[in-house]
């Protein structure tokens, strides 16, 4: 049990050879609190796995310090860090049985036999592997193999953290839900620091207490799922989290008014002193856009209605911009021209892609 501190951690795979560095991970300060479940969310190639491997010691960062509580472990080899990690594709020891596979991390650390047996039985029960314990691991399905990998990650009770690198990629969708909720339950019962890498927002939002959104080797926002949804700190977070993502409309600001495609929108806060040449965007979630009869609010045109069963999405055109609104099932959307209203307090202002907090008017 430990908190893990990243103190200016950065990594460039080519190594720190002078000039402009090609960072896979840009300098980062962050504290992972003990006992929390984190998700690292971001598109492929954004540096999630690099960050994970730095924490586990498989990659030594080119800059910065890594602390477990107060101990500096930046250059310690993996074996001495007391960390567990589960990989994207199942890694099993072919020649061993399922039970031996699960016991392997404990056996290597020379725990007493009875402790190992008890722990293996407990983990096997959690992951529904009890029936297969005495089978050779080789012949099992990909699902079962990945469960063994998960089991090996969870079997050590004294680890500082358990890291998951997209562990459910190879798992069948139905089982995915089950395993994810199981992991969540295990997290609650074991009270471990868990870090879960994924590019699937549903996975991230259901698993984690805190979600860390990354892009291009940079952390854009750390927050609860609700915070990510309600106050995305970066346009990318707004776009990436939520389905469909946030509407982003280029705008010009005049203190507490925004001009979008020649139409004026009143904002609830004032935004004085925004540089002239800055790129300003308004962000509003589809859930917070209301379609009304023409004549009230902003003027827009309906392009298409997507019926997803549970909700309907109206694809709208506002001048040169496209946006999406969710429409209640019982509301008949007029053809052609409609009116639009943005929910008060739900319109965010982004200056050069970063969210700016307005001053109360």
């Amino acid at each position, binding site marked *: 049990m430990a908190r893990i501190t990243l103190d200016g951690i950065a990594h460039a795979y080519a190594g720190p050879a002078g000039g402009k560095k090609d960072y896979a991970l840009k300098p980062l300060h962050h504290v992972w609190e003990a006992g929390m479940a984190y998700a690292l969310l971001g598109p492929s190639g954004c540096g999630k796995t690099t960050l994970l491997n730095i924490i586990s010691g498989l990659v030594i960062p080119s800059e910065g310090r890594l602390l477990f509580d107060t101990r500096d472990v930046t250059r310690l080899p993996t074996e001495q860090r007391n*960390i567990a990690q589960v990989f994207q594709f199942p890694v099993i*020891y072919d020649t061993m049985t399922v039970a031996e596979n699960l016991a392997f991390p404990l056996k290597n650390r020379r725990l007493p036999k009875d402790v190992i047996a008890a722990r293996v039985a407990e983990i096997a029960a959690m992951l529904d592997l009890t029936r297969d314990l005495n089978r050779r691991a080789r*012949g099992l399905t990909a699902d079962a193999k990945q469960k063994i990998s998960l089991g090996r990650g969870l079997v050590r009770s004294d680890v500082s953290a358990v890291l998951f690198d997209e562990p459910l990629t190879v798992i069948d969708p139905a089982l995915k839900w089950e395993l994810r909720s199981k992991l969540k339950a295990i997290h609650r019962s074991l009270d471990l620091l868990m870090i879960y890498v994924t590019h699937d927002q549903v996975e991230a939002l259901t698993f984690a207490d805190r979600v860390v959104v990354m892009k291009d080797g940079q952390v854009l926002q750390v927050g609860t799922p609700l915070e990510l949804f309600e106050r995305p700190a970066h346009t990318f977070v707004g776009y990436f989290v939520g389905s469909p993502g946030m509407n982003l409309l280029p705008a010009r600001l005049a203190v507490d008014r925004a001009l979008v495609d020649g139409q004026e929108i009143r904002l609830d806060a004032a935004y004085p002193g925004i540089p002239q040449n800055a790129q300003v965007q308004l962000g509003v979630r589809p859930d917070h856009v209301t379609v009304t009869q023409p004549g009230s609010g902003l003027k827009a045109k309906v392009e298409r209605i997507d019926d997803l069963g549970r909700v309907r999405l109206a694809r709208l055109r506002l001048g040169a911009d496209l946006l999406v609104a969710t429409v209640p099932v019982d509301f008949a959307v007029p053809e052609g021209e409609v009116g639009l209203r943005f929910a008060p307090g739900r319109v965010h202002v982004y200056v050069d892609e970063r969210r700016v907090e307005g001053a109360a008017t």
Partner: protein
Amino acid sequence: MNKVADNRAWLLVLPVMLIVAFSALLPVMTVVNYSIQDTFGNNQFFWNGVGWYQDLLDPSSELGGRFFSALGRNFIFSAIILSIEVPLGVVVALAMPRQGIGVAATLVVMALPLLVPWNVVGTIWQIFARGDIGLLGAAVNALGINYNYTSEPIAAWITVIVMDVWHWTSLVALLCYAGLKSIPDAYYQAARIDGASRWAIFSKIQLPKMRRVLLIAVLLRFMDSFMIYTEPFVVTGGGPGNSTTFLSIDVVKFALGQLDLGKAAAISLVYYLIILLVCWAFYTVMTNVDAERRA
């Protein structure tokens, strides 16, 4: 599924059948033919039935005695070769670099002995190990160790074995290297996370993953060492005495030295059957391993 009967298909198979007939079946049949006859030269042959085979399988006869002692030498030689080259090849493969510029250089150097023609290998070692002018032989003698492969059987065996190890360990190493390269990095990373020792990584990950290529390596090295002819023939000519006379060398002595075509033919066929039997055993083991993997 409907089976289509079209006899024109035979035309497509015919070229292969002809090639196999001329390259394998007919030569084997001439050998079978020789093995049941005796000749005193002048191209005159006499029917001998299974006489040669009876002699051959009776260790108390002259022919049987020579056959069994040469066969024994073959098995001992193959056993020594396998027990040295396989572990050594694995160790070398583990020590080879996995990435960087060293890889290409290592591969080229490793492949060199495999590219040398076999009788050139024999000639190299014949000179290299000579007690009077050979670099190795003279050096060993200079150290005060009496070493002369032309007069001492032990020295002759050591020379032939070291030569074969020099010649063929690369093959085992390269095969194992290919097996090692096919192991994904995640296995090594997981092993580090699991706190596995170096030995555990070898025995639980690397060795199981190398099993298939190792079986092939053992098969190839067994076949080749069991059929060895050229190199020891060039270096020792089967001597001193008969101490390095392997079956293949003895067959040639019978056939060309004594013109005993019948005896030579009988030995050849039994020799061939032994190799076939071992091949079959290996093939069965390998397909079983595969089946077990898929199960």
